[in-house]
């Protein structure tokens, strides 16, 4: 029966190794300052207060009772930020008046270069219902914290810099609770359905 014993030993060894792997990987992933889409319900949706490119203050009070989308980015971002805004514009055009049922907020993580004037010019290319929001450094930090989002300034050569940032679209329910993320790689119909349900107040916490 030494063969069976060896087999049992191997199985136990495998279980121990797997267990250690799970523990280590859980701790490692817990360390990264990312948005936990699966367990982040309680962490997303805190207080924030910013000013739109049209000059109005937008905060939790002004949004009370309205579902909304939040997306972090900056205008020096060549790819994902304008693409997401163009895609949101396309989705809102397709939804028509249904898209009046929620707000769409683009929060700049780079208020230094994204002035109110720069944002106002930038936003003329998108659905006029999308609001670009900016704040002071402290207000921007508070907004990031409110959504458990991440942004970091990374210096480049010649005094230039870029921003690392959370790139997903947050769906927020009318009661201010987190309604999940919208992945821009999902099928178009899935995204449209998520937005329709958000507008109707049918989104349940993920």
């Amino acid at each position, binding site marked *: 029966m030494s063969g069976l014993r060896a087999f049992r030993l191997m199985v136990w060894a495998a279980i121990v190794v797997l267990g250690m792997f799970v523990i280590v990987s859980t701790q490692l992933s817990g360390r990264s300052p990312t948005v936990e889409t699966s367990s982040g319900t309680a962490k997303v949706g805190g207080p924030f207060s910013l000013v739109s490119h049209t000059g109005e203050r937008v905060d939790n009070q002004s949004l009370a009772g309205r579902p909304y989308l939040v997306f972090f980015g900056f205008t020096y971002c*060549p*790819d994902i930020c304008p*693409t997401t805004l163009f895609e949101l514009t396309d989705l809102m055009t397709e939804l028509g008046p249904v898209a009046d049922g929620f707000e769409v907020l683009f929060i700049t993580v780079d208020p230094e270069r994204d002035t109110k004037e720069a944002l106002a010019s930038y936003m003329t*290319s998108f659905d006029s219902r999308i609001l670009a929001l900016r704040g002071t450094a402290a207000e921007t930090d508070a907004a990031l914290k409110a959504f458990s989002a991440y942004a970091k300034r990374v210096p480049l050569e010649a005094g230039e810099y870029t921003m690392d940032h959370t790139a997903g679209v947050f769906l927020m329910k009318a009661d201010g609770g987190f309604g999940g993320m919208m992945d821009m790689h999902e099928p178009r119909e899935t995204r449209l359905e998520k937005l329709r349900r958000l507008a109707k107040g049918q989104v349940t916490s993920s």
Partner: protein
Amino acid sequence: MSFGFKLTVKLICMLAAMLLSTSAFAHQFSQGDIKIGHPWSRVTPSAAPVAGAYLTVTNSGSQPDRLTGGSTPIADRIEVHQMTMDDGIARMRPLPDGVEIAAGASVELAPGGIHLMLIKPNQQLIEGSSFKATLEFARAGTVEIEFVVQRNPTVETGSGNEHGGHTP
């Protein structure tokens, strides 16, 4: 003003239109062993300080080459950058040494990965327009190309294949 002259003018106009449309469809440029497939740039929002541009480089030579950047009359310069997405966080970094194209290999510069970045474009990039650029390679030297401006990558556009004609 003879009938023959009018006809000639018409013919020239038609030829010019054909040539223009051909250049918009062809989207293939080459220089020595380097072939550039379908260079395109993303439409930009108004007053955008940067623009992304994409293409496929094929190196049919027996030596590796390196795309290091380029220039265009419509922007300060063209740099090679890399976008990565990790745990939902987007990061963008310049690649000062450019991107290597191994001998006999093909490299696709596409959204969400290695791409070209136009720094400070002096005009808004409008869908359907095009602009000239010069790419710089470590071995092959410069390659003259023309980018077409598209809203979405060709493969993902569900609406027709207006740029599908360039496939050989």
